[in-house]
């Protein structure tokens, strides 16, 4: 138990030196209704070749966290107001916009949820890939760019890459488009890849293929991946570690097996129990009553307390610190030791 670092995470010693270290990151949105604390003190670190899953519901701030990492928060409403994002030892938040453009793609890259929105409908795939490559190598001639583009498509197993380069986005299926987006993101072999709901727009069979592809890319290049999702299935399939996000903060973090076997935060448990299973006939699902709190007007105590079946008075009065369960597993809950699992 470490009361002195309430926002921080108990960091396990990563297998390798961390490529990305996020400390107490805060991103606020200044909206007409008030200040929305979308990311409110998030810390974690990521070693190369590692996959971290960030799981949360809509409005938990997970997408804003993803955008903050690559400094693409929506202007002018969104502002990163505090914390550090250390990428290869330097703070991304201190870079100029020009330097940041260099870093994006070369060191950190991003895949968005909807391939429809990530590709420009009026340019061919080849043009868009060439553009992505030119951002970093302004002097390459057309032939070299063509070669690089073909290589990029090959790396994501796009059949007949030469022909595909001439295609326009509308001539391709969703799965193919998402592969192209992946190819663009990975064209310069970044060390960190942020994937925000990479498969929600895809069909079941295509989704499995795509997650397989991400793993494959990771094995080949050693890229560290952050998968942002609402789906515990995606987490179970791809991640080494999991962080559960609720109302702008991480509430539990740990190795994937431990989170599934011994979740310590009531919210994690409720989420795990609320999903139906393909391989098991369930008679009744647990559901979480109520709504997440408004990110504008947050309670002083635990943010989940109002919906939590195990809340005590202390939960309402005081924000819980991180409680270490094992070296790598921690939960921000006053009663993490007492809550029964599996629930009765």
């Amino acid at each position: 138990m470490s009361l002195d670092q309430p926002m921080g995470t108990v960091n396990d010693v990563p297998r390798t030196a961390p490529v990305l270290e996020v400390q107490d990151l805060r991103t606020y949105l200044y909206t007409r209704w008030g200040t929305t604390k979308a990311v409110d003190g998030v810390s974690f670190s990521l070693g190369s070749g590692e996959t971290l899953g960030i799981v949360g519901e809509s409005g938990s701030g997970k997408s804003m966290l993803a955008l903050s990492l690559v400094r693409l928060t929506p202007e002018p409403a969104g502002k990163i107001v505090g914390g550090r994002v250390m990428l290869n030892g330097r703070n991304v938040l201190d870079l100029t916009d020009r330097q940041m453009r260099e870093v994006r793609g070369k060191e950190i890259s991003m895949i968005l949820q909807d391939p429809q929105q990530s590709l420009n409908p009026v340019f061919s795939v080849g043009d868009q890939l060439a553009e992505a490559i030119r951002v970093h190598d302004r002097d390459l001639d057309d032939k070299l760019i063509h070669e690089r583009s073909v290589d990029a498509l090959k790396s994501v197993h796009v059949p007949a890459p030469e022909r595909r380069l001439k295609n326009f986005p509308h001539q391709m299926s969703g799965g193919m488009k998402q592969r192209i987006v992946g190819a663009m993101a990975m064209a310069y072999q970044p060390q960190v890849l942020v994937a925000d709901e990479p498969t929600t727009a895809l069909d079941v069979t295509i989704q499995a293929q795509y997650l397989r592809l991400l793993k494959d890319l990771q094995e080949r290049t050693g890229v560290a991946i952050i998968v942002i999702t609402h789906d515990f299935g995606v987490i179970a399939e791809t991640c080494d570690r999991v962080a559960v996000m609720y109302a702008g903060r991480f509430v539990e973090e740990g190795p994937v097996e431990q989170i599934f076997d011994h979740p310590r935060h009531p919210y994690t448990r409720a989420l795990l129990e609320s999903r139906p299973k393909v391989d098991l006939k369930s008679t009744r699902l647990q559901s979480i009553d109520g709504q997440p709190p408004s990110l504008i007007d947050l309670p002083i105590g635990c943010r989940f307390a109002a919906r939590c079946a195990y809340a005590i008075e202390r939960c309402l009065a005081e924000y819980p610190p991180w409680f270490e369960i094992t070296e790598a597993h921690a939960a921000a809950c006053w009663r993490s030791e007492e809550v029964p699992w599996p629930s009765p």
Partner: protein
Amino acid sequence: MSVRNQPARFESDTDEALELNFDIQGHPVRRPWWKVWSKRNNRVPWVSIFVVLFVLVLPALLADVITTHDPLRGVLADRLTPPFWMEGGTTTYPLGTDKQGRDILTRLIYGARISLTVSTITILIGAVVGSTLGLLAGYFGGWVDRFVSWLIDTFLSLPHVLLALVIVAAIGPSFVTIVAIIAVTIWASFARQVRGETLSVRETEYVARAHVAGTTSWRILLRHVLPNVANTLIVLATLQVGVVILEESSLSFIGAGIPRPNPSWGVMVADGRDQILISWWISFFPGLCILLVVLSLNLLGDWLRDFLDPKMRQRGRS
């Protein structure tokens, strides 16, 4: 084009955050309308509203009260009096007089009345005819749509000014002619816009739900489609007022519009044409009025478009 600086999908968090207008028990937090009004857009174009009100609407409604001069008959002895701040000017004629000794300000005020009348009538006709045809075409599709679309295409490609000249040459200029000509040219823009909106509303799930509920087509048109295209109609009508004023002035300027001696702004600009170097005020003030009013209406329309955007009310899903 920049591939990496794609407009990121940030609605999820911003909008969800905005959407959480609930207290902890899940009761919605209701805000008084004036708060919603002022919060929804804090850049109300007050200047435009002011201009439209004081240059167009109020003069048009209160012309007889504001001024005592006769807009049609002047005092020949006072012809070509300059505005009051210039040498030889007098406060009897604050903006001067034209070559027939008529007060420019008075004529501007009565001109506003003409502009407002012409635009109100033409837009009413254009909006009613255009949106009815647009609704029917968009909703029922098939041959109705093909016919209406063909009509729209045809009317939008007619050369308006030429058409006006031909008609005026044949039957002479009159108030009714100009209203008819402008109405004929603007209904098509209403029809096109409403047809497009209807096409998209028709495919929404709430229209499908209404069908499943057994609601009749006419009721669906009135209760589900029309209210959801109403915003577009309001915005378009506002923007069209400017267009109509401009068109009426242009036609009047070339003599195919409001017949003389009626004080249309376009006629006034035309009247001062040959004196522009000496008595510049005859053309300048009506020209300024046209510019200010049309510009303000466009700004107002743009603002209305944002203000009435359903996304500002009914926030989109992530």
